[in-house]
């Protein structure tokens, strides 16, 4: 028993708070019995039992993540019907002998024929692209400033970026409604300053959607940029300046190229969720802000056209797969280069 105690105490500084608690409790007999029982059971399970436990998350994701996609795919080929649930079955046994399969491409046909859907996809991609670029332009100087700030500030600055990321998305979007609306704080301020005489219409326009996306996703851009810029080798910049390179040129020809991995990761993390965004276009956008996440929501909840909503989801997934695969390739290449 003694040597094991040494093992634990010896590693305690490395092992953290739980090890300290375990140490303190180890003189408490019921705790020792409890732990001994757990270990006895776990050892009793053997290799097969343990691999069952290890398989749990795998099985969970197969059942609750992959299988649902298969069902979405299946449903997108069904027909809308007045029934509960509101779609026609894809296959049925006729007289208990023949399996009748009925695939309907009606939903997909509608997607491509009604210009509304194509427009919604294009608008989503456009809004996501523009707001990703805006986020980059705001996020980069911030990440750069954080890296250059005095060392003792860095933990606090990092905390300040992470904190909004943890606070409710919905609440942060809601906060902008009071600021942007016609009789909102921004208009009030601008009118009192005498800059404008008539209130601006910002809420329920695409501009409000841009502001909302940039605001909500800014931490997703700053964090990978910061992680990347922090590792940047300062001696390269020093060498450049020794060789007579001005600070702007050094920034363009050294800092920017070396921070490409951070830029790509940040843009990826902002772009993908922004394309399918629902809350922001719904609360800040107007009736003419057609984004595909909102279209899917309306088809599902308001029109109760489940097959069409599924088809919208399938096509959105296919569109998103392109940047995901590109990003994966980029990451693999970057990893291969660094090792």
């Amino acid at each position: 028993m003694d040597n094991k105690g040494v093992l634990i105490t010896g590693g305690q500084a490395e092992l953290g708070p739980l090890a300290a608690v375990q140490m303190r409790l180890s003189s408490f007999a019921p705790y020792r019995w409890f732990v001994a029982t757990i270990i006895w059971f776990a050892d009793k399970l053997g290799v097969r039992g343990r691999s069952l436990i290890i398989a749990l998350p795998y099985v969970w994701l197969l059942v609750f993540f992959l299988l649902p996609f298969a069902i979405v795919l299946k449903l997108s080929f069904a027909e809308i019907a007045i029934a509960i649930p509101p779609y026609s079955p894809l296959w049925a046994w006729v007289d208990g002998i023949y399996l009748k399969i009925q695939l309907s491409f009606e939903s997909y046909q509608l997607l491509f024929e009604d210009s509304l859907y194509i427009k919604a996809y294009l608008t989503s991609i456009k809004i996501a692209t523009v707001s990703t670029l805006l986020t980059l332009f705001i996020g980069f100087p911030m990440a750069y400033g954080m890296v250059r700030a005095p060392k003792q500030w860095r933990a606090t600055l990092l905390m300040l970026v992470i904190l909004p990321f943890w606070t409710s998305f919905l609440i942060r979007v809601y906060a902008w409604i009071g600021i942007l609306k016609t009789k909102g704080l921004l208009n009030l301020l601008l009118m009192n300053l005498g800059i404008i005489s008539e209130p601006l219409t910002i809420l329920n326009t695409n501009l409000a959607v841009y502001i909302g996306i940039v605001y909500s996703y800014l931490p997703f851009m700053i964090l990978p940029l910061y992680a990347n810029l922090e590792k940047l080798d300062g001696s390269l910049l020093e060498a450049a300046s020794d060789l007579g390179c001005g600070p702007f040129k050094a920034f363009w020809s050294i800092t920017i190229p070396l921070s490409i991995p951070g830029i790509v990761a940040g843009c990826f993390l902002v772009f993908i969720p922004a394309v399918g965004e629902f809350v922001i276009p719904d609360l800040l956008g107007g009736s003419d802000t057609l984004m595909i996440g909102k279209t899917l929501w309306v088809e599902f909840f308001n029109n109760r056209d489940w097959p069409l909503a599924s088809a919208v989801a399938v096509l959105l997934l296919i569109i998103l797969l392109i940047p995901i695969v590109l990003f994966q390739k980029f990451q693999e290449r970057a990893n291969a280069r660094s090792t």
Partner: protein
Amino acid sequence: MKQFSRFNQISLLLGFLFLYLPIVILIVFSFNESKLVTVWGGWSTKWYAELMHNQGIKDAAWVTLKVAFMSATVAAFLGTIAGMTLSRFGRFRGRTLFSGMIYAPMVMPDVIIGLSLLLMFVALSVDRGIATITIAHITFSLCYVAVVVQSRLSSFDDSIEEAALDLGCTPAKTFLFITLPVIFPAVLSGWLLAFTMSLDDLVISSFTSGPGSTTLPMKIYSQVRLGVTPEINAVSTILVGLVASGVLLASYINRRQAKQRQLDQQLAAQDE
């Protein structure tokens, strides 16, 4: 060479103003006496008092807390196993699929996750309610826990685990006394992350909820669509305050621990 230029200072100042001003305004106006959000009528806590009498919001808050607690706990358990699998088991059959399924829910639009889970629950004719919301929340938050645990394990030398096994510890004992204490801070922050993400979620909950299982974000959302009210500002302030104090506490503990570790290393270096 590295200097903190005026440009850096200004970009940080403006950036953080942009990030924090809306939230500060929201909090200030939750203490507004006037019902009109843009007119300041003096300080008051009456909207908080009114909240206490709003049964609908209290019920929704209770549902949300239950779902968040259960989903975070299960997600911490499953996510820890998943993170260990990713970092300790090297290459196994189906690894690409597994890591794909871990990373995909983090970038997948909420509407797709919500829709697909709902369609599955309908296809299996499962009654929707607190249980289905919890299952949905476990599914996306276990991935975040897995990533946090994996990154902690990747920075930890597995030779201590090997030493314990060599010295005759059974795998279970090694896990309980070596691996678990090492990853415990990561599991804890994973749990916190899962908890707050469950508190926040609107879209996936809306798809997977049934009658009688309205969560707080769903309640807030349905009222926000009708306009800005000081009452919603008050609920939001409470939520923001809760999450912020939790995160600040966690980071304080983390930092103190890191300092302690540094101190111990310095002492050890002096001893040698």
